[in-house]
């Protein structure tokens, strides 16, 4: 007979932790939506965070986007050459970069750079009692720290993704231009020829979802950090790993839904 008074876990420690973790994350996300639409809005802090997320990632995004454009073009050229279809290169690159690579590369870089930074910063604030200090000063730390950061990533990452796609296309153009004589206007026209409104909308929607995911995961892990400095490292690491995992899951789901919508 099981003694329920001394029984510590409902199923097992691992499974209990897993399900309570999901419940906590759900409560955390619900609290974000509850607080996001209430005053005060801390607009100045949102702008500061947009600067932190956006401007400080710009150099990395530029370089990565440029390289992705060049490498993808170089890799695709031989296959198209076999069929004598190199003139389709701009269209192929356009589809690949605008619909998939631009948003995904930006999201993965930001998950690493921004997600870990948010996780570490909030984690460090938690373990050094700075979050408690805000709370005892009658300041809502969730609203000031979490809502502003999640809003900033949700706003800044779509902008970064659009910029990344533009730079990647430019990188691709440089490579195409080296082989064939083609003007930049003609290249961009061809690149966008097969892209429709649904593709652009899906790409922007995707990046909004990625931005939100990176922000909320980084904040959740950092805000709930425990165990001192070890916990800070753990929070930063988990913020990156979980955000990347969720980004891939979301990518699959959004692509599937957008494909269904295409046939309606």
């Amino acid at each position: 007979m099981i003694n329920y008074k001394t029984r510590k876990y409902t199923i097992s420690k691992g499974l209990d932790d897993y399900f309570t973790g999901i419940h906590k994350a759900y409560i955390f996300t619900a609290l974000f939506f509850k607080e996001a639409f209430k005053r005060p809005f801390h607009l100045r802090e949102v702008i500061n965070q947009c600067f932190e997320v956006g401007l400080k990632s710009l150099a990395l995004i530029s370089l990565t986007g440029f390289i992705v454009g060049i490498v993808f073009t170089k890799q695709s050229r031989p296959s198209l050459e076999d069929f004598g279809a190199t003139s389709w290169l701009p269209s192929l690159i356009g589809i690949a970069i605008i619909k998939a690579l631009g948003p995904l590369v930006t999201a993965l870089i930001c998950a690493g750079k921004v997600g870990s930074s948010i996780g570490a910063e909030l984690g460090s604030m938690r373990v050094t009692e700075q979050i408690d200090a805000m709370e005892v000063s009658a300041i809502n730390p969730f609203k000031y720290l979490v809502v502003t950061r999640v809003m900033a990533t949700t706003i800044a990452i779509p902008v970064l993704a659009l910029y990344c796609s533009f730079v990647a296309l430019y990188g691709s153009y440089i490579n195409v231009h080296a082989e064939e004589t083609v003007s930049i206007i003609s290249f961009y026209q061809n690149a966008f020829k097969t892209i429709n409104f649904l593709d652009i909308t899906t790409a922007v929607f995707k990046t909004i979802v990625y931005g939100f995911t990176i922000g909320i995961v980084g904040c959740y892990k950092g805000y709930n950090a425990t165990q001192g400095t070890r916990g800070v490292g753990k929070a930063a690491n988990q913020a990156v790993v979980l955000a990347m995992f969720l980004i891939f899951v979301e990518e699959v789901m959004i692509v599937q839904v957008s494909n269904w919508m295409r046939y309606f």
Partner: protein
Amino acid sequence: MKNLKQHIINTEESVITITGLYKSFDDLQVLKGIDFNLFKGENIAVLGKSGTGKSVLIKIIVGLLKPDHGEVLVLGKHVDQLKTKELDALRLRIGFSFQNSALYDSMNVFQNLAFPLTMNIKNLSKGEVKDAVEEVLESVGLKDKLKQMPSDLSGGQRKRIGIARTLILKPEIMLYDEPTSGLDPVTSAEINELINEVQQEYNTSSVIITHDLTCAKNTGNRIALMFDGKFLKVGTFAEVFDTDDEQVKGFFNYNFIQ
């Protein structure tokens, strides 16, 4: 040091009243029935070994932790029954000085001090904020550190800035969590003096959590000695330590005060 006897303590008016307070974390029972009174204008030093629940007690007073059982009445309000807005209003009347100061790393001293002020009082002009910050910095003797980052300050200076940050909202109650821990004897003495000055200048009532007997003796009008989640003795320094109780004597002897 200023003479504590000059300070008027109103023993008719209690600002904090705690009865039958229990608190546990999972299987660990930390507080096991605390009864406690803090009078207006009084400094009470809560002494005890590490891990006896001293910090938990003040975190319950300020509403950072919820009690399992018992009544916590602060400035006439039941802390555990307040709604968020009411709790925030009460917290504006309480200052909390953290053990590690908890200064905001990303802000300089001026921003650290101005932050609680500008977030809680709207429509303050830049001049008013600057005056308020300079006033509290002067009262903790660090007016020249306005532009410094917390990482550039010494342990004692960080403690002072931490105290100044709470004073800027003119609290009625001050809660000090280990104000002298990690400090050298000279700096500890300065912090003790500052606690007494705060009591007199700002007319605060204070709970000082410490395991430093010198700090308790110099700052507390009364001492509450905590052992194993309960108060073993409460009274003046002489009343508490004039005893043959082995636990009390052990604590006294360890601190080498004769």
